[in-house]
């Protein structure tokens, strides 16, 4: 059971992470151990999340004001300590957001002048709240990994070893973003949300 779910994750993982297919079942016990020891950044989970960040892009409409020019890169910002450990760069290879090339930007703090289009906020509750309020009202898709307190427009949730997400539609509207109904269709029902 667990082996199969890990396998599923494995299949979705980037090429590098996929390891050798033949070794999957040999590695299964290792994953099981990692799985049981809380969310201490097992690389497979972060690989999925890194990929999901890029996959979210086609399902979100940004207002034209979000970009100064068509040639301006799409800024994917990681605020706080980067939890992806290079997996993000790997997932972003060859990716683009429509016409815009994607630039991965790592920031200590979120400020209104960052001009990020997507902002992954990593940190404790307070950091998240601060960052969210900095981005609020700007055309920024905020993504969080919060289990409680303030959450971004998209908030990753682990459900039965699957990475799922919640969507705060109101927050999206505040940030002038239009979320695809398809994305809404597969999003988890919203558990809690705090208006900033």
């Amino acid at each position: 059971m667990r082996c199969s779910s890990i396998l599923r994750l494995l299949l979705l993982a980037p090429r590098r992470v996929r390891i050798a297919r033949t070794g999957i079942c040999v590695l299964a016990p290792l994953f099981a151990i990692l799985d049981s020891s809380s969310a201490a950044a097992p690389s497979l989970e972060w690989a999925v999340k890194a990929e999901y960040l890029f996959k979210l892009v086609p399902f979100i409409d940004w207002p034209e004001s979000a970009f100064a020019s068509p040639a301006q890169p799409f800024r994917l910002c990681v605020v706080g300590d980067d939890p992806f450990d290079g997996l993000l760069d790997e997932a972003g290879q060859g990716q683009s957001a429509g016409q815009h090339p994607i630039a991965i930007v790592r920031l200590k703090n979120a400020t209104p002048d960052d001009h990020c289009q997507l902002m992954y906020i990593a940190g404790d509750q307070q950091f998240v709240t601060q960052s969210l309020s900095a981005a609020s009202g700007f055309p920024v898709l905020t993504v969080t990994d919060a289990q409680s307190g303030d959450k971004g427009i998209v908030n990753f949730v682990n459900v039965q070893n699957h990475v799922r997400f919640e969507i705060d539609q109101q927050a999206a509207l505040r940030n002038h973003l239009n979320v695809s109904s398809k994305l809404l269709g597969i999003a988890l029902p919203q558990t809690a949300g705090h208006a900033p």
Partner: protein
Amino acid sequence: MKRKAFPYFTNIFYVAAILAACFLLLFGIGTIIYGTRNYAAQATQDTIIQGRILASAESAALAFDDKKAAHEYIDSLAFSPNVESAAIYDNRGNQFVRYIRAGSGMPPARAPRQAAYIAKDRVRIVVPVTEQGRTLGTVYLERDIEPASRRFLRFGLIAILVSMSAIILGTLAISQRALAMANTELERRAGELSSANTELRVQIEEREKAEAALRQSQKMEAIGQLTGGVAHDFNNLLQIIAGSLGSLRRRSSRWNLGAEATRDFDRFLDSAEEGAKRAAALTRQLLAFSRRQPLEPEPVDANRLVAQMTNLLARTLGETISIETVLASGLWRVLTDPHQLESAVLNLAVNARDAMPEGGKLTIETANTYLDESYVAPFEQLKAGQYVMIAVTDNGLGMDTATLAQAFEPFFTTKAGGHGTGLGLSQVYGFIKQSGGHTKIYSEPGQGTTVKMYLPRTQVEPAVLGEHPIAHETAVAAAGGQTILVVEDEDKVRAASVEMLEELGYLVFEAADGSSALKLLDGRPAIDLLFTDVVLRGGMNGKELADQIRRLVPGVKILYTTGYARNAIVHHGRLDPGVELITKPFSYSQLATKIRAVLEQPGEMPGASSG
């Protein structure tokens, strides 16, 4: 021509109809194939659209690995009855989710490369799953091109077309056959009509021929009646003249006339007797034509008769005409009057001579022949059977058709006045007909003439075939004083006869008719001979009178006389056996000879006592 033209056009019509039926069939099949192809293309397009819709719906689920949501979408394909199977593949070609209709095959394990293809009535399409230009994976969809109902409809259409064509062709075939049968029937009827028409025409022609022949024979019969009557009266007159002349001559010897007067008397008497003789010959021919002359038939060998006549003919025809006789061997005998047959041949020879003024050849030919039913049909009284033919042919002037038609009529002649009586062929015609035979003339102007006489064959053997006595003028011997009863209705004829008989030394009683004759005999001694005319006035003819007298006076001799013969004693133109007859006009010596001969016959004559 018409009968041919009709089927020709019909054939064109049928070929056109068959072509039309074939065209209809091909057109129908073509339409169905085109429709099917078109439908397949349409179905492919529809499937691609369906695939795109599915891809669009599945993009988020595929992107974020939400199999539950993905299944919700893909399983909704169950509402589309044509979809057999479907599958979603991720970017790496691995199957993400799939849908399989019950009883259908599995979709491929990995994403196929072809965008769309058709195989085994299935259309299979592969479309990419994209979101805002970003490819997330692929959708595979397999669909039945045609639902079963539609296929049934298609095959049904073909079946209907085929059966319609078959019905058209069948109907054509049936109508063609019906037409052909009607044609045949029509032709048969036309043939029947034609043959009936031909038969009718033949019958009409035969009838016309028969009518013409009948008219001709009726005309000849009428002329015969007339000439017969005239000849009879003439004979009576000639009898008076000849009898008177004879008496005059016999008595003149007792008169003492001067030498010059005697010479003149004899000259005029000779002249008058010669005229009376020629007149008698003429009336004989008239009687022959009217078939009223009494015939004395006997079995005759025509070959022998002709042979015996050759000398006579040579004298008659002269040196410029050669005579050839072609006589058939084994010639049958005929029952006829040899004297009349001689006359007939002589008459024909004389006609031939007159037709050949520059000379020529006369051929007399005999043959056995057979006249069949079809030949005798137009002629009354002529019977089919065996005949002896005697043909007399010349190579003279010949006759045209108009002349031929009248040739047998009495007094019809082409000869210059005074050269012919016009009775020669009439005698031949009447005599041959009276003998139960038939005469036929073939002639063409410039070619000559053939007259064929047909006389019926007889099985009777000739008793004695000797020289035929031709009118012996024997010396008149004195009579032995026998008693003769003369019965004659013409007073002057009777007077002449009585005078002759008295001169001959017979005792003569006379009566004008049958009843007065019987009255005369009442209480009188027996008479030796009854000399009676065949035809009497007052209800009793010569034969009836003779029969009565024979009862009164057994052993009485009978001699008939007549201007012409009637049925009373002449049956079918022939004398009954044992009947003695002297025809008017007769001469003194002829009468004397005949009376003597009859009186000298021994006893009762066979057959004379009957009826």
